[in-house]
């Protein structure tokens, strides 16, 4: 607890630097990541992250110094080149995008390793620490780094806000964007540049391999909570920032713990929880919706059977045995019984010693399902010219999802018909 207050008072300058640095990096790359994710190019971040290494080495060989700005410039150049190459290879050959990404990633990284080891073996004393660039050093951020990070983070955010509308259109409807005269090529280059910026600076904090996570994971998590791009960007930034702070806190309380991997671990947990629990799009929500639909379909099918039996005998409220019901339709007996008991509790049917019978409410609901089924069959034969023996299956599914408004519309459209295509009465 003491550590908690020590950390969150931000009294120590070092804590301030590490936390602020992590937050800035995580949230700005999360925002850029949203666009790459939506353009279905989530893995290019991984390629760029690997491709910066030869740039750093070349910059060192050419300049002979470890000046961070020169190294970053080198990183930026090869990172950018890698994305251009991926695009070029995919557009000019039969090689698919994922292969191009994997190829560029491993070859650039291989060249980088070759150069790095060659430098290390050359006996140049100035090179020591160059490989720190690879694995990140979030725990040792200093004020100077922070200036660079803030500058880049602000640049990324301002550019995103400034070109928000254009980038949005690029993500969702590239062809339309082109047709109304947007400079799509330039916008793509802008997005590429933003991605490379985010990656190059982010590597300093989390290292090469984990940089991909900083782009993809917050964006993917945010996508599960909203349908709106603006909210998605803000959510992704918040998730990134939260993970940044928490990661910094963990490595503060346990100094042996690396900051970068903890940031990624936390952001991944948030993402996985989002996949599972997000309302609407989440896995559990969808599973529950499916189960609910299944139950509803079973109930309505049972009521429909009662109604059809009633039609046959011209008596809707007599007792029917379970076997009599199941002769008309093949429902597993156990399932049917569960459904019947549920319907009884809801008051749609009653149980008598010698069978089950519809109540008034049950008759109304069963009648509606039968009506919808027959209306839809009629609609299909009249408007889509389908043969009358081909429409049953379709109506079986649609009868459960037609709303009362649609029902009204159908009735008007079909001019309040009396008979369905099989010449049975529409109730």
């Amino acid at each position, binding site marked *: 607890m003491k550590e908690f207050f020590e950390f969150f008072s931000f009294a120590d300058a070092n804590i301030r630097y590490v936390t602020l640095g992590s937050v800035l990096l995580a949230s700005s790359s999360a925002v850029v990541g949203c666009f790459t994710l939506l353009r279905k190019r989530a893995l290019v971040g991984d390629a760029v992250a690997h491709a910066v290494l030869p740039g750093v080495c070349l910059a060192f060989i050419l300049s002979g110094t470890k000046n961070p700005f020169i190294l970053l410039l080198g990183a930026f150049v090869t990172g950018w080149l890698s994305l251009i190459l991926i695009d070029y290879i995919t557009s000019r050959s039969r090689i698919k995008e994922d*292969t191009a*990404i994997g*190829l560029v990633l491993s070859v650039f990284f291989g060249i980088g*390793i070759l150069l790095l080891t060659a430098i290390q073996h050359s006996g140049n004393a100035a090179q020591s620490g160059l490989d720190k660039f690879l694995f990140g050093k979030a725990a040792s951020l200093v004020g100077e780094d922070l200036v660079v990070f803030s500058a880049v983070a602000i640049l990324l955010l301002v550019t995103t806000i400034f070109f928000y509308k254009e980038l949005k259109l690029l993500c969702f409807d590239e062809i339309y964007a082109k047709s109304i005269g947007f400079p799509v090529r330039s916008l793509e280059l802008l997005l590429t540049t933003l991605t490379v910026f985010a990656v190059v600076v982010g590597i300093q904090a989390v290292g090469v391999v*984990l940089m991909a996570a900083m782009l993809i994971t917050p964006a993917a998590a945010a996508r599960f909570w909203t349908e709106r791009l603006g909210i998605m960007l803000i959510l992704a930034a918040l998730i990134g920032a939260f993970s940044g702070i928490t990661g910094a806190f963990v490595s503060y309380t346990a100094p042996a713990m690396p900051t970068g*991997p903890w940031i990624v*671990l936390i952001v991944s947990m948030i993402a996985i929880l989002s996949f599972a629990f997000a309302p609407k799009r989440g896995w559990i929500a969808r599973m529950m919706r499916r189960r609910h639909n299944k139950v509803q379909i079973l109930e309505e099918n049972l009521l429909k059977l009662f109604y059809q039996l009633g039609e046959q005998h011209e008596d809707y409220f007599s007792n029917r045995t379970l076997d009599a019901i199941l002769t008309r339709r093949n429902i597993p007996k156990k399932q049917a019984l569960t459904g019947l008991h549920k319907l009884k509790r809801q008051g749609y049917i009653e149980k008598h010693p010698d069978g089950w019978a519809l109540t008034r409410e049950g008759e109304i609901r069963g009648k509606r399902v039968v009506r919808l089924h027959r209306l839809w069959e009629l609609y299909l034969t009249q408007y889509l010219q389908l043969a009358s023996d081909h429409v049953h299956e379709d109506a079986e599914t649609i009868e459960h999802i037609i709303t009362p408004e649609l029902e009204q519309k159908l009735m008007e459209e079909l001019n309040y018909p009396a008979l369905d295509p099989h010449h049975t009465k529409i109730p």
Partner: protein
Amino acid sequence: MNAFWIILTGSLVATCCSLLGCYLILRRMAMVGDAISHAVLPGIVIAFLFTGSRDSIPMIIGAGLLGVITTFLIEFFHRYARVQADASIGITFTWLFAIGIILISVFAGQVDLDQDCVLYGEIAYVPLDLWLTENGLSFGPSTIWTLSFVTILIITFIVLGYKELFLTAFDPGYAAAIGISTTLWYYLLMTAVSLTTVASFESVGAILVVAFLVGPPATAYLLTDNFKQMLVLAVICGIVASVAGYYLAYWLDGSIAGAIATITGIEFGLAFLFSPTHGLLFKNRKAIPV
């Protein structure tokens, strides 16, 4: 002799990876290879912790298991949680890799393993780790034995399952119709990829595994339209890269794995430009109306 052992190691890894890589790139799963090669890290660390040694067998089991879990998670996120395919790959492997690094940090004292060894591997050390019998007889580097075994296994797998692998990659619908389980062969292929990755890991590092999984198959794909030829060409490209890469590294005094990866890139570049059927130069010439 050292040069021979190193080139042989490279060639064995190249053979396994290039063969499997052909299936991966045709199934548009090139990045799954990359993902597996990073995501097995926690498996390796846990195997170390349990056995306390760098024996190959527990390591291969631990990491192989994690490789399969990785493919399973990627499928799960994609199919059940409806995460888009590329994001699902990216999230899964970075998550597992982060866990791996954290495990290394937690047990730093007990585990003789660091990130460098996992990312680079050091193929130059292969000749040093000899398999010696108790009376001092040497059977050569132990890695060679492990890798030879895996290579034979992979080749047998591909020969025996050729029809099934081919059909599930090219026409899953037809494969399913004639009773071949696409899921089973998907997981078998992924198990093979994990096994290869793990067996090659210690000697050549993740980056060279990825380079071999993608580079030679992509090069071969530009050179032929016949799948059997593609398999053979990919293996040849991989072995040529191992030989050329060794000498490039010798000349530059740099990492052998890095140099081999560089050569796979050069091979691809040459095929991209000069392939008689799909090369950029010849394609442009063909496009000119006569």
